[in-house]
């Protein structure tokens, strides 16, 4: 399938040829597959398919390494920004990115992402944030929003009992080493289109050697949130986006 203007096609029509299989184990209503597709689409658009390596953490999204025809290293939980740092320093002309969840990046791997950002490391970190450890059955993470239902906060995350979520993208955006930071979503077409632009900007800033880049992508997890599949997107808008607002948190200074 060819399109004259790739930015104008319907997302639903598009299955990138780089996916060797469109089958996956993710639940109905999960936002991850849309994020996978955006990533692969942007790698194609920026002609990075044969000069990029993804360092992938532990979560539901990890399965992309078995289906997408690009190079991956599946690393230890939380450590992807450190592994990506070692790679980037040895392969400075390649696009090196991480793919992590909020459990991976904010709970287990907070040190790695913050230090990579502080160093201004020329890597791109992507966080799929659904506020739960989906792969282990829907437990609370350090990014679960107050009031959000998870298996370990059945009545919703409580400030008194569980404290507050860590807004890692906002923190990183305040670092001088960060060249580009944005938070997108995949719950509706215009959000998807914006998120794709954020990904393009993030990779472009890496290729231009501007510094560290991070894109947080809010993804629906109706299974983990214990809401009906078709209500996942609305739950995200009501529950998550009220804490984690969308947009460019640190735009590129050169554009």
């Amino acid at each position, binding site marked *: 399938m060819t399109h004259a203007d790739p930015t104008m096609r319907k997302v639903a029509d598009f299955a990138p040829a*780089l996916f*060797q*299989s469109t089958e996956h184990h993710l639940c109905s209503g999960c936002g991850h597959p849309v994020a996978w597709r955006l990533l692969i689409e942007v*790698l194609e658009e920026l002609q*990075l*398919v*044969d*000069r*990029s*390596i993804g*360092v992938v953490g532990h979560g539901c999204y990890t399965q992309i*390494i*078995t*289906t997408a*025809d*690009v*190079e*991956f*290293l*599946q*690393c*230890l939980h939380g*450590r992807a920004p*450190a*592994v*990506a*740092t*070692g*790679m980037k*320093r*040895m*392969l400075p002309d*390649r*696009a090196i990115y991480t793919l992590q969840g909020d459990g991976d990046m904010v709970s287990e791997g907070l*040190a*790695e992402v913050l*230090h990579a950002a502080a160093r201004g490391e020329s890597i791109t970190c992507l966080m799929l944030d659904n506020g739960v450890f989906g792969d282990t059955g829907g437990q609370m993470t350090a990014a679960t929003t107050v009031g959000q239902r998870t298996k370990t906060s059945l009545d919703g995350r409580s400030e008194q009992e569980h404290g507050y979520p860590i807004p890692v993208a906002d923190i990183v955006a305040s670092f001088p080493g960060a060249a580009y930071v944005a938070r997108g979503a995949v719950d509706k077409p215009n959000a998807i289109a914006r998120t794709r632009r954020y990904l393009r900007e993030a990779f472009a800033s890496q290729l231009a050697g501007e510094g560290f880049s991070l894109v947080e992508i809010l993804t629906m997890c109706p299974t983990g949130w214990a809401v009906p599949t078709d209500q996942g997107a609305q739950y995200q808008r009501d529950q998550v986006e009220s804490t984690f607002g969308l947009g460019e948190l640190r735009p590129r200074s050169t554009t």
Partner: protein
Amino acid sequence: MTLVLREGYDAIAAAAVDAGCRFFAGYPMLPFTGLLDAFARELPRNDGVWIQADTEIEGANMALGAAATGARAATGSTGQGIALMQETIAEAALNELPLVVFNMARGQQDYFQTTRGGGWGDYRTIALAPASVVEAAEHTRLAFELADRWLTPVILYGDHMIGFTQTTVEAAPDHRGATEPDKPWALDGSTGGTGASKVVWTWRQGKHNTPGPGPNRHWQHVADKYDQIATTEARHAGRHLDDAEHVVVSFGTTGAFVDYVVDELRREGHRIGTFRPVTLWPFPSVTLGDLARSAPCRQVLVHELNAGQMIDDVRIAVNGAVPVHAIGGVSQDESGMRQGELLDVDTIRERILAATEGARR
């Protein structure tokens, strides 16, 4: 050949660069810090990359990432910091990534950590234990070679004594520019879109169109490889072993003290020899076992400065052929950074003589 006076830390870092090491990341901890400093000086001026990591975990994973691109890469710490790296060391082993880890230890209490490890899975790490600065430099080169040959982490077990001792070493050894093996497994991003793009994953499931062996077959392959290493890479050093009635086993820098004492006792007519595993893993069990079963051998003494760790491997090797006795013990000096009063030739002499007289009675 030009000889220069070098401190152990500098000798190791220079040997690493000479062996083609292009990446080092580490976090300060005494007495490893001297090596971190030496790499900070050596690598950048030799087209390498040095990063001060913000945790040992981060440093080890940075080195793992660099190693995954095929670059010779290393990290290091003391045993206490290497405790934090165990998960990463196991990950490198199961991913078959060559990774060199320098343990500039605070003493000899890291034998179990070095030879057993604390990571997950059926893995091993080759472990080299130099007794001197010269040997440490040789072992550094060997560590990178073994890591590449067997696609495994290799630990070099040094200590403050190696780090802070100055000695003459070759300034520019002949190995510089030594060729490295082909690394078809290394990631460089170029295989994306080919239908056979690479993926590094301990489960080795491959991709949809190019499935891998899967976890069980892969992990069995890794275990079989370590069996092969065990039979081919065991190394040891020994002195006066042909007719030794008493064999003293020690490792690392302690071995130099034991050798000194045993040479002295030999001159006085005692039939004593020394046996020092150069590889802590694989432990040279076959050689030591043969020695213990040889006619003159009456007992094996183990001098290690811990509560008894290597003695387990000695007992496995000796397998009851002769008695095995510990003559070392826990011995840390008050700084906490180095071996204590049991690392002393008079003490070692007394303990060896007491044990040999005991055997005569």
